[in-house]
């Protein structure tokens, strides 16, 4: 099971946080800080797996992360997920974002936090992997966005 998905930049500013297990608000912020601290220390040529920090806790947790330009994508998982599989999943997620936002960059994530959540919702649900087919995900997100636009509405 995926316990949490965190996206933050090279300075530790959160761009997307999604916890699939209950943590109190201040705990969440602490976890983000600790994860950033652990992950930012890593060289670029070491492996992408880290034993989890003490907060998100327990011996069964691992941090699997990928560093793309200015952003860190961190998935906190337990032993029921395949480590290499999660690495591929991060890649699929990023490529999906790329398709949805057309050459995605950090600013897209900053200004469209809600849209990123909706895309993530089509990939991971309740801490489990829902769909891995990029085209399928993009198509579904597109249809939902169209529904939103078709309503006579105030834009968010």
């Amino acid at each position, binding site marked *: 099971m995926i316990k949490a998905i965190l996206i933050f930049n090279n300075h530790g500013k959160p761009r997307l946080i999604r916890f699939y297990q*209950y943590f109190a608000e201040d705990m*969440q912020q602490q976890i983000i800080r600790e994860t950033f601290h652990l992950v930012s220390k890593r060289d670029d040529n070491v492996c992408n797996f880290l034993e989890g920090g003490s907060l998100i806790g327990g011996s069964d947790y691992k941090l699997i992360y990928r560093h793309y330009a200015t952003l860190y994508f961190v998935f906190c998982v337990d032993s029921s997920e395949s*480590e290499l599989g999660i690495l591929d999943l991060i890649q699929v997620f990023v490529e999906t974002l790329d398709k949805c936002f057309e050459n995605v960059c950090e600013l897209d994530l900053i*200004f469209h936090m809600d849209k990123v959540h909706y895309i993530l919702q089509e990939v991971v649900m*309740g801490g489990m992997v829902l769909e*891995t087919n990029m085209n399928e995900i993009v198509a579904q997100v597109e249809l*939902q966005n169209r529904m939103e636009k078709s309503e006579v509405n105030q834009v968010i």
Partner: protein
Amino acid sequence: MPAPIRLRELIRTIRTARTQAEEREMIQKECAAIRSSFREEDNTYRCRNVAKLLYMHMLGYPAHFGQLECLKLIASQKFTDKRIGYLGAMLLLDERQDVHLLMTNCIKNDLNHSTQYVQGLALCTLGCMGSSEMCRDLAGEVEKLLKTSNSYLRKKAALCAVHVIRKVPELMEMFLPATKNLLSEKNHGVLHTSVVLLTEMCERSPDMLSHFRKLVPQLVRILKNLIMSGYSPEHDVSGISDPFLQVRILRLLRILGKGDDDSSEAMNDILAQVATNTETSKNVGNAILYETVLTIMDIKSESGLRVLAINILGRFLLNNDKNIRYVALTSLLKTVQTDHNAVQRHRSTIVDCLKDLDVSIKRRAMELSFALVNGNNIRGMMKELLYFLDSCDPDFKADCASGIFLAAEKYAPSKRWHIDTIMRVLTTAGSYVRDDSVPNLIQLITNSVEMHAYTVQRLYKALLDDISQQPLVQVASWCIGEYGDLLVSGQCEEEEPIQVSEDEVLDVLEGLLVSNLSTPVTRGYSLTAIMKLSTRFSSLNRIKKVVSIYGSSIDVELQQRAVEYNALFKKYDHMRPALLERMPIMEKTIFSGDGIFTVCLWSVFPVLQANDLLDLLGGNDVVPIIQTTVPTKPASAGGELLDLLGDLSLTVIPPMTAYNKNGLIIEFTFERSNPNPNIAVITIHATNSTEADMTEFVFQAAVPKVCSFPSCILINLLFMSWCIGT
């Protein structure tokens, strides 16, 4: 009232803040605006306000006042509102808040909505944060959707079902009929989530597991199609067809095949096929191979397949990609217990990984190296591990040191090697060893009688170099105190003896006492060592002087010791040699499962409850002695203890044989102590009437709480008589 600012405006504004305080101010202002907008029950802009609130929540600011607003959005008819409302519910609400139950009805309605995306939102929310009550209420709806032909909804329903089962395990039965034709789906998304659902059910219930075993042929067929089907553009990831689904199926096969011969048999072929045919140039191929290897190791596969699997792992170890090396080490660690010999073949590669730059890989390699140490390779491995200890990060040193001590204790080829290894660890990582290693080492050194001179000489030399590592200093000062005479007399066989005078030794020990680097514990060790040397050295005056100085030390522990030693010099000088003589060989209590005879001693004190003591000792061959017929006196408030002993003085208890089995005879004799009739003396004679030796004889005396004062019971263990008596 002007329209509330858009989300992107807010974000833009916040980004212009130059300090944390500025940002906080902006956010507070906006929160106030949002609050008043909520109070006015503004339906049009509610979604915008909640979106802004979620953004501020991500930055770490409190957003709980938006919880109820999320519920209002969920109840709205507009898709936009529902979308942001459900997202807000998932981010801000959880089962700890009472408001969440208000969602139940909305979710129920939305699960039956005409638009599939609304149904999808409802399923998603229920599957993320549904509480047990909600799950119980809505499980029926989820089960219905699990049978729909709409693949978008079906896959979401499957994962939602997993969540329901996790929350309310009793409902698992309910989903069983719906799983019947899940695997005949063509849609990969549905297949994937179905396999997840089946996996969850199998993991939770052994009955389900046996029920689903019949699906093995179907799973094998699906896997085969994926491998053989050739290029399929929709599912292709780097040339491999839906690797995620392959990995999932392999994992389910692992669970189904574990411990079951027939299922394992059915999967053998496909596993061999995947193992040999998968393209390993990209990460996806390796992910599949890795999962295949884990499956092969877990099920009852034939030996050829197992060897294939371990060889794949060995190949992984040589891969340039760090991630592959990491997972290889992890899986080898899992299999080292069962396939020890196969893993041994890759030992040199594993040891090379100790030199890797990557911290995660180093840790894994270290754990694996310790698992691979055995009597044959101990010397070579220890060399590598000591080198590793020298150069590794401080975080590792404690674990590595403990591991080395354990391995050395189990497989040491000779006592000298053992002591050398320990010395090496103490000198390189001395400050990181665990606290209990000091007494363990002392015990080890005491027991290697022939090595005393060599040991004390080496420790002395180490002290001359460096007194900052406390465990090393403690062990060294203890040894010098014990074996100082050997040190000074220069009788070392193993090594070139060094010339040391008594004064030089005392200089070193006194140096420890005054040094800022020494902890209070270390100071205690060195003071005691100096005192012990008073019977081994001839320079008594110097020692007397040192001891008397510390009689006024600020450190209470040191002061007490010095005062007592002073007293020894002044009033009890005749006892001093006996008190400070060499320590006898200490037996370590090794608790092995068999061979412990625990004799329970409680008959003399009839006030006790028999059961309490038996509980204490946990009953490993416990032989209770039958209660004697001493009459019980009613326990009086203050003088309970005296009453107990008083009982004894009334009667004389005859000697008894407490245990007579397998050649071990244990007899108890009771008598009153001669000078003081209030003291009862119980003597236990243990006799070995067989011809073989009895080893690991452990004496444990259980004492009732009432009698735990030292004045009450003195246990005098006379080992010698036990060893000689046959």
